[in-house]
């Protein structure tokens, strides 16, 4: 605390001195918060941290701020992220090359277009059943859905009234896609064609439907 005040009162002109001060000591509570974030496998909310540490939520939040400062990108190889409705530690792209060498595998396989599309449908329409995904995509989503399940990006969430298994996205999905909550997804209608484009499309389809010239099989006289 006193360091922070000092820095505020007397911003040093000496760059190196400021650099030393910008990694402040953590007090006992902040150390505890740091430890809890290290141990937990899922993101923790300030309330969960406060309950575990036996303090008020406001105190936990203040401690989180100190932890965030120490674990800012560039200041530490372990960075504090706000993800999936809580706080969690993660490593950044700076250490990815070394991590890849150490664990001899990339962080996560890429998504195929079919997987990404299935995931998008689940993310926006959850809970949604497999037949519904198939209907929207126009092709079977079975293999894509199985892979997403295996990778922990989607999970079952009961059955529809017709008995089809429904799916929803997981905490893992939010973590891997850098989101705090599912409602951070932008409005899906933003990618729709403009009303003019839609009208044009409709007209073309109707015209195709009404066209009767050469109604039989066109003698393929190319």
């Amino acid at each position, binding site marked *: 605390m006193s360091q922070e005040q000092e820095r505020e009162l007397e911003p040093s002109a000496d760059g190196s001195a400021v650099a030393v001060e910008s990694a402040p000591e953590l007090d006992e509570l902040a150390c505890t918060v740091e430890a809890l974030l*290290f*141990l937990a*496998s899922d993101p923790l909310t300030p309330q969960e941290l406060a309950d575990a540490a036996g303090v008020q939520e406001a105190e936990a939040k203040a401690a989180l701020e100190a932890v965030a400062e120490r674990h800012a990108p560039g200041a530490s190889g372990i960075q504090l992220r706000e993800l999936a409705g809580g706080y969690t530690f*993660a*490593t*950044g*792209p700076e250490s*990815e090359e070394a*991590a890849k060498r150490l664990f001899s595998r990339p*962080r996560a396989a*890429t*998504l*195929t*277009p*079919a997987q*990404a*599309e299935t*995931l*998008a*449908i689940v*993310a*926006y329409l959850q809970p949604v059943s497999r037949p519904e995904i198939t209907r*929207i*995509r*126009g*092709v079977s989503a079975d*293999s894509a859905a199985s892979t997403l399940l295996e990778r922990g990006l989607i999970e079952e969430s009961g*059955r529809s009234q*017709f*008995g*089809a298994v429904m799916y929803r996205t997981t905490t893992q999905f939010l*973590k*891997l*896609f*850098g*989101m705090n909550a599912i409602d951070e997804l932008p409005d*899906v*209608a933003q*990618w*729709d*064609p403009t009303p003019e484009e*839609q009208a044009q*499309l*409709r007209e*073309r*389809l*109707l015209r*195709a*439907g009404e*066209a*009767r*010239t*050469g*109604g*039989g*099989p*066109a*003698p*393929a006289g*190319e």
Partner: protein
Amino acid sequence: MTLPALDLDLDVFSGPFDLLLALVLREEIDLLELELADVVLAYLDHLEGRGELDLETATEFIVLIAALLELKSRLMLAEDEQELLDVEPGEAAEELLERMLLARRFRSASRYLQELFAREAGVRFRNAPPPAHLRKAMPAPAAGSEQPQALGEAIGRLLRMPPTINLRHISLQRVTVAERLAHLRGLLRRGRFSFDEAVRDADRMTVAVTVFALLELYKRGEAWWEQDESFGEIAVHAVASAPVAGAVASAG
């Protein structure tokens, strides 16, 4: 009639509705003029060029052809058969438009998700179990904390039979191009027949599939045909030197 050159751009193709959309968006292509056999050939060329069979894309492609077949068969029915349609062409177009837009919407959303995913590349999380002495602190669920009723309810849900399947799709599968090919080849032994004869008393799906069987015969050089005027009789002739053997396996 010349057919518009098709450049299917199959490298970027990854879903039937998307391709359908792209095709319809190309003003120059009238679905009635689109020869599905050409689409298939273009795709086969594409596969040959790549030297490998991508099963996922291949599956999607087959579904695409089925969707196009359904659409085109609707469009090809003559005016007086309209009452047989369970869906008006206008309605069909609306339904198709809606489905294409929906597919496109989530295709776009998936690209957005891919961007998010790429942006997070290089972010890793710790994935280690908590130390043993802390694991011991985790409470086991208390005895009797789950309700046996939940198990009975689950079985009840699993006993429910799903609603019966839409019969339209069964009729789609009932007629195969291979069957219609065999039928046409039988008629061809006479040297010549009219298309009306070939589809007498047939339902609309059979008519449509027969058209594709006819296209297949033409492609194989077994038959050719002529039509004097729009909606006139289609006369089909055998090509003398055609190898009439050689069945098309599972063309439907």
